[in-house]
């Protein structure tokens, strides 16, 4: 039994090391002065701690801009998604109307379509509207989410009808009932969806690459890539510092909301 425990722990530790090694290497490089970066031997700890890379990333580079862009875009997307998926999911879960079956099937069908398929038409629409290279171009295409509608619909179905009826008897309007009586009951599902949405759009590379050309509008992953190519890959230290700064907000958010995150994954595992 104990031997098994040790073996299991060793296996897990090995997996953990493999996954963490790139991050450790990134941290290590970001803290080294330039002359320590290209050396034949491997040293994780810098001989001389150097924070100049961070200063450079923040002042000369655009790390701050990337983080702010990331926050604006992910939060903008999230707020719009909540505003659209909550009513849509509620109607699909609770109302009987003629086209419900068809609309629900459409939502499910959209789940199967990869975003790359619609990329070109959406790009052209944004171009027509002269919205390319703006926040709007990054946010509007993701203003709603088929996955979110589906996930939330399943949760809304579990809210007891009596609760909604009680609110009606007490004089709450339907919209008020939805947002202040029903939505609080499905908070775990909303949080789970929020986490997925933020992680997805923070890390999204494909869409920003298409619609953003100026570095001032770049989201974090696109920013790193622009930074890397513009520097010609020579300023490894500054690049790693930028990468560290960009990864930080998500890592910190994850550490704070670790429990919810795991709950969210389990929840979507059951319901999604």
């Amino acid at each position, binding site marked *: 039994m104990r031997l098994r425990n040790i073996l299991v722990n060793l296996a897990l530790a090995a997996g953990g090391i493999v996954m963490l090694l790139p991050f450790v290497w990134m941290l290590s490089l970001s803290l080294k002065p330039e002359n320590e970066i290209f050396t034949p031997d491997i040293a994780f700890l810098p001989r001389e701690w150097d924070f100049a890379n961070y200063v450079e990333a923040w002042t000369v580079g655009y790390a701050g801009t990337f983080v702010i862009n990331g926050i604006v875009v992910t939060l903008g997307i999230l707020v719009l998604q909540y505003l659209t998926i909550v009513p849509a999911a509620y109607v699909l879960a609770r109302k009987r109307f003629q086209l419900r079956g068809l609309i629900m099937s459409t939502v499910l069908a959209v789940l199967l379509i990869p975003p790359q398929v619609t990329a070109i038409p959406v790009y052209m629409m944004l171009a027509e509207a002269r919205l390319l290279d703006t926040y709007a171009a990054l946010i509007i295409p993701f203003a709603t989410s088929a996955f979110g509608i589906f996930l939330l619909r399943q949760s809304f179905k579990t809210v*007891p009808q*009596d*609760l909604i*009826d009680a609110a009606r*008897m*007490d*004089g709450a309007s339907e919209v008020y009932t939805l947002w*202040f*009586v029903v939505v*609080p009951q499905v908070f775990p599902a909303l949080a789970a969806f929020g986490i997925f949405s933020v992680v997805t759009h923070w890390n999204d590379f494909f869409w920003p690459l298409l619609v953003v050309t100026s570095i001032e509008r770049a989201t974090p992953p696109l920013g790193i890539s622009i930074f890397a190519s513009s520097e010609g890959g020579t300023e490894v230290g500054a690049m790693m510092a930028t990468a560290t700064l960009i990864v930080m907000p998500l890592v910190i958010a994850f550490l704070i909301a670790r429990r919810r995150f795991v709950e969210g994954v389990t929840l979507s595992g059951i319901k999604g």
Partner: protein
Amino acid sequence: MTGISLNAVSKRFGATDVVRDVSLDVAGGEFVSLLGPSGCGKTTLLRMIAGLETVTAGEICMGGETIQHLSPSARNIAMVFQSYALYPHKTVFENVAFPLLMQQSMVLRLPWLRHLVPNRHRVDAEIAARVDPVCHLLGIDHLTARKPAQLSGGQRQRVALARAMVREPKLFLMDEPLSNLDAKLRAATRAEIIDLHRRLGVTFLYVTHDQGEAMTMSSRIVLLNEGRIQQVGTPLDLYNDPANLFVAEFIGLPKINVLDLHADGKEGRIDGIVLREMPSEIDGVPTPRGAQLHVGLRPEALQLCSEDHPHAMSGPVHIIEHLGNEAILRVSKDAKDICIRVQPEQAIGLSPGRTVSFRPAWERALLFDANGSRLRATRLRAAA
């Protein structure tokens, strides 16, 4: 005090008629139970009165005015749900205050924005001044800061009652409010609801499938089956003078014994047993000849007798229930289970398996025709 009247109310879901042609007048201040087996339409009827379901046909009036077109909250009706339907994310105080909060302006209803409203404190104080006495009356004033999940079943029930009372409605609707409580608490809460009704003096409509609950609580009972009213009357009316076999079988515990009676002049046969010297009149009706009838005999309408009595039937006792003040004998006769209520001393010395003889007490028998309708003297006379 406002009563409510239903005029030929029907409800249809798709192809199913759930409520059919129900007419009913409830006077102000009455406590009326809607009783029936599950699926009889009693809850649907209640929900139509509440405004949670539309009415397919007919009219619902309150205080002389039709209310069908009004939204549930505009009807000034409160409802206690079977599941209590407390808002899980709100405290007890917030739950009870919710109907009052909903009467305020839009901004005051919103969770964060309300802090911007200057007269918020005055409004909050007014709401508290109405919530507190209700919580005090129901003995939940020490629980106001808790969430529903931290309450016991009985406490949740009181919160649901408080939330219904706080608006001072003209009509209380209750949908099986006791069914989630354990037996002991149920009896206590039953008494409390009766007390509450007396104190508030408003009209109560109470849905239940438990005939004992309906019998003990209500001034009148409306017995429904398959969406139709079977009988309306006081509890004793329904017990002593049921309109049909369904009512007779639904009301009363232990259940009424129903035997097949074939009367033929002086002789009669009950479930094939020949009875000599039939009484000339049963249930106030001259014993009809040659007809296939049902006779309903409540457990107290059967008496133990000697086996040579002309109307004696017999069978082996298989269960004896000693209840202290009385005893219930369950006797197997053919495939039927006959219930006889006897004095406690009559049951002493009996043991399961002993054969006993019993006879109907004809003066307490109820007579039904082959379709299950009650044969009443007046109706027969009217027909003749």
